[in-house]
């Protein structure tokens, strides 16, 4: 705005247009380009009309344009209902409404539309940055609203912004209190429109070549963990998710096990669970996955309680919710370091973990048969067999890579005997295939492995790139044991996480640059830890502040303040505030009056109490009669004289200031 001598109306309207732009701008990221363009052109048009002092366009011109825009929304989304078209319509409505403002209530319509559009922005982004932008936008909106309330001269923009800032500052404590204390209701209140959630990546219930590699490239957070007990070392951080036992020659899928019963002591479906060793309590904040699987540290009894969700479990030790998880959930689990699962299972019942599709991988089948025969000859058990295969994997120099060569129809044969390059899904899948061929019940377990500890807030962040697959074999008398063939072939993957195990392609962008930094002490990784910690706190306290967390927090708060010290401190603070208030009030008194009040206190000590309504002149007369030293009397008389002059005589400013100074000095 170069021309500062804008008339009041113009400046006010331009401010409103600017506020509307601030509200709509974040939506440009997901609105169809033509809507963003229409909004921009409309706002620009409005600004131009304002600057030129032209009339607003008539309704017969606006109406067809608006109808055309609605048609455009329908064309773009194929519907007018739902979240995205709704937001698009609101954005267009706000822009057009600015062209159709005639009365004061139109102003409020614009402001209220703006507030609602601000809310819809959170469908798409709820980052810290969005929060900061929200506050800034609100202050500008408030400024626009205040501007229209002046009836006389309008103060400069800076002062109006300050007033809006003062309003926001006044509102902030109450807003925080409401945010923390207002009873939260767990949504949704009605069926969420289908498009409310975007697609997400994550572990799925099948594993075909390539599924894991896609995940491995994603830096997206899968979940965060806070350990309430000492955390196990990195190479023990196996986060169990989905168990895959069916193989059709290409894809591993779930069996769809029988539901797990809550009562562990009366398990009849052949699932027995003995837990021992030290317990590791951990709290998991799982991102919305659109899936139903819950992840826990191995090995956690599948009796999780997830607030607001019904949880079930299979006899393969998977925990899942009955509804897909659209939102973050938080739950606490207890893992045990020592465990035996189905140790006393009847070997005759293990058939489903020995099943192999006929007609695939003849070489591996032959190898399995040989191993089986060998073990029978030597009389060795399952454990020795597993060891033998693992040492074979180690010796044959398998290579761990995200870009394995293409495999043929007999993918396990190709991998084990030809390419020897693969990712955890190749290792785990091939290993289980070989185990089954050798007559050992085995299955694939998918989930995550590892995670990154943030030293700032103690949270372990597990990302999609930590997705992992490993194997479980059943050992008679000991139950299911975890075997990680990837660890045998590429131990660095397990010990230090994926980022070190893989030679990375040249990183692009900030995320790549940050991922490259693995030195824990570099400023870049400290910055990254700081950002992660802030993000996590934001997630935990702003985005996921659900009814359960609210209750916990309020209980904790009550425990923290429910002692004598807190009320005492509050009382002390209150007394201080009151004293400060009084002091300020005293100071605000006219200095002449304050001096007179001091004089009265002083005179009262001498036995000279002014009668109600007694003026300085009569006081001065009475003063003469007092037995006081002459110079003291003279000073007090002069005080009264000056006071009378200041109070009752018309003095110019110079005289006034001089007399007031003298007055103050006389009492010292």
């Amino acid at each position, binding site marked *: 705005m170069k021309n500062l001598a804008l008339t009041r109306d113009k400046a006010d309207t331009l401010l409103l247009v600017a506020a509307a732009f601030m509200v709509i701008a974040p939506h440009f990221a997901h609105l169809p380009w033509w809507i963003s363009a229409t909004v921009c052109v409309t706002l620009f048009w409005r600004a131009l009309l304002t600057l030129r002092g032209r009339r607003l366009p008539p309704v017969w011109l606006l109406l067809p344009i608006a109808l055309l825009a609605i048609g455009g929304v329908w064309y773009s989304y194929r519907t007018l209902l739902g979240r995205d078209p709704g937001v698009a319509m609101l954005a267009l409505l706000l822009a057009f409404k600015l062209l159709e403002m005639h009365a004061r*209530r139109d102003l*409020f319509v614009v402001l*209220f539309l703006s*507030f*609602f559009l*601000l*809310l*819809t922005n*959170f*469908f798409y982004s*709820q980052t810290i940055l*969005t*929060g900061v932008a*929200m*506050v800034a936008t*609100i202050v500008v909106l*408030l400024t626009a*609203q*205040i501007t*229209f*309330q*002046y*009836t*006389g*001269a309008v103060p400069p923009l800076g002062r109006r912004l300050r*007033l809006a800032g*003062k*309003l*926001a500052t*006044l*509102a*902030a404590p*109450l*807003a925080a209190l*409401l*945010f923390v204390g*207002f009873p*939260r*209701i*767990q*949504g*949704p*209140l*009605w069926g*969420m429109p289908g498009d*409310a959630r975007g697609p997400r990546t994550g572990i799925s219930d099948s594993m075909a070549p390539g599924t894991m590699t896609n995940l491995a490239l994603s830096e997206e957070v899968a979940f965060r963990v806070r350990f309430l007990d000492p955390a196990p070392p990195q190479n023990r951080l196996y986060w169990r998710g989905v168990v895959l036992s069916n193989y059709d020659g290409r894809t591993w899928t779930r069996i769809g096990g029988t539901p797990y019963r809550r009562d562990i002591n009366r398990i009849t479906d052949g699932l027995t669970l003995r837990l021992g060793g030290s317990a590791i309590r951990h709290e998991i904040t799982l991102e919305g996955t659109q899936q139903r699987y819950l992840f826990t540290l191995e090995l956690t009894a599948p009796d999780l309680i997830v607030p607001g969700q019904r949880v079930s479990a299979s006899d393969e030790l998977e925990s899942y919710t009955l509804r897909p998880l659209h*939102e973050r959930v938080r739950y606490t689990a207890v893992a045990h370091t020592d465990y035996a699962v189905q140790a006393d299972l009847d070997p005759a019942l293990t058939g489903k973990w020995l099943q192999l599709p006929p007609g695939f991988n003849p070489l591996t089948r032959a190898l399995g048969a040989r191993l089986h025969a060998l073990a029978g000859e030597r009389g060795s058990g399952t454990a020795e067999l597993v060891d033998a295969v693992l040492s074979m994997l180690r010796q044959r120099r398998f290579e761990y890579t995200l870009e394995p060569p293409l495999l043929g129809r007999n993918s396990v044969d190709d991998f084990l005997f030809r390419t020897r390059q693969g990712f955890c899904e190749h290792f785990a899948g091939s290993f289980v295939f070989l185990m089954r061929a050798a007559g050992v019940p085995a299955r694939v377990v998918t989930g995550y492995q590892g995670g990154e500890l943030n030293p700032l807030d103690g949270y372990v962040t597990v990302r999609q790139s930590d997705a992992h697959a490993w194997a479980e074999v059943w050992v008679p008398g000991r139950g299911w044991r975890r075997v990680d063939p990837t660890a045998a072939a590429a131990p660095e993957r397990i010990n230090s996480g994926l980022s070190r195990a893989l030679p990375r392609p040249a990183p692009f962008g900030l995320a790549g640059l940050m991922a490259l930094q693995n030195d824990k002490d570099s400023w870049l990784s400290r910055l990254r830890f700081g950002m992660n910690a802030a993000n996590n706190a934001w997630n935990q306290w*702003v*985005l*996921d*502040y*659900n009814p359960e967390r609210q209750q916990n927090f309020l209980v904790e708060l009550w425990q923290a303040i429910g002692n004598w010290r807190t009320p005492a401190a509050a009382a002390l603070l209150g007394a201080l505030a009151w004293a400060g*208030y009084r002091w*300020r*009030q005293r100071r*605000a*008194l*006219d200095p002449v*009056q304050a001096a007179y009040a001091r004089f009265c206190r002083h005179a009262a000590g001498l036995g000279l109490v002014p009668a109600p309504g007694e003026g300085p002149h009569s006081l001065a007369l009475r003063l003469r009669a007092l037995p006081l030293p002459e110079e003291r009397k003279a000073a007090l008389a002069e005080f009264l004289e000056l006071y009378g002059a200041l109070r009752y005589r018309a003095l110019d400013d110079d005289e006034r200031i001089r007399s007031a100074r003298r007055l103050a000095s006389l009492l010292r």
Partner: protein
Amino acid sequence: MFRPAVRKPEPSGAAVLTMRRVYVLPTRPGMAYAVLLLLMLIGAINYTLGLGFALTFFAGSCAVADMVLTVMNMAGLRLTAGRAQPVFAGEEAQFEVQLHNDGTTDRHAVRLGFHPPGTPRTMELPHAVDVPAGASAAVVLTVPAPQRGWLPAPPVRLTTRFPLGLFGAWSNWQPDMRVLVYPFPEADAPPLPVRGAASAEGHGAVGLDNFAGIRSYQPGDPMRHLAWRQIARLGPADGGQLVTKHFDGGAVAELLLDFGELQPMLDLELRLARMTQWVLDAEGRALPYAFRLGHLHYPAALGDAHRAACLRALALYGREGGA
């Protein structure tokens, strides 16, 4: 910020709008805002938007802060009655009201106006003022004065919606003010009842026969007696003086405005209106006039004080407050 006005000894007739005297209610946009907040809350719940909750609560708290600031925008204002000049019936009575802001924050957009009982609360008040910190503002409020006599100021209502317009605060004040309303001057009143030796030129030339020289001008001398010829000779700008023609034997033109002389058949108000018009006529033509109304008798004189005394007597004739 929340400091009420410093207490000071109040001159009589002043009032401080303490917090207790300021009432506040949401305005129509304010209620719409409440609906909006509810919608936003439902949206935030349904989509579990953490930031949505934050926005809703923040917007709601802004409304609460607005309510506080709206009350504070008015609370602590000190009101004093200003001057009020007499008017003639049928004119608008003007009351000056002064608003003093003894606080440290500026008050903006305070509307005020007379608000006689029975007018709707939402009536738009005619005046809007800003009162900066430590300053005062004066507003002249008008009210029709249809009848002679004392007209007390109606109750004054003050409202404000500043800063956001979501809440309206209001307060009422009965100022201790009244104006004197003179009777309406009769439109086509008969000529002045000049008695004594009226000259052939008519009563307008009374006493001109007895021209007795000139003397220097004294305040109160009628303009028509200025000796223009002498003044023109040496204008006041050149050091000359205004001079007035001096007449002897003014007693010849005794002008007495006597209420008792008027036809008792006439309506009382009409008689008063005629007297009023005569007082104005006599003043306008600088004829000294004596005045008689009931027991009241003012000897012949001219000038604002005389005029005011006569009109006052007419205004209050037969009314409470003296004849």
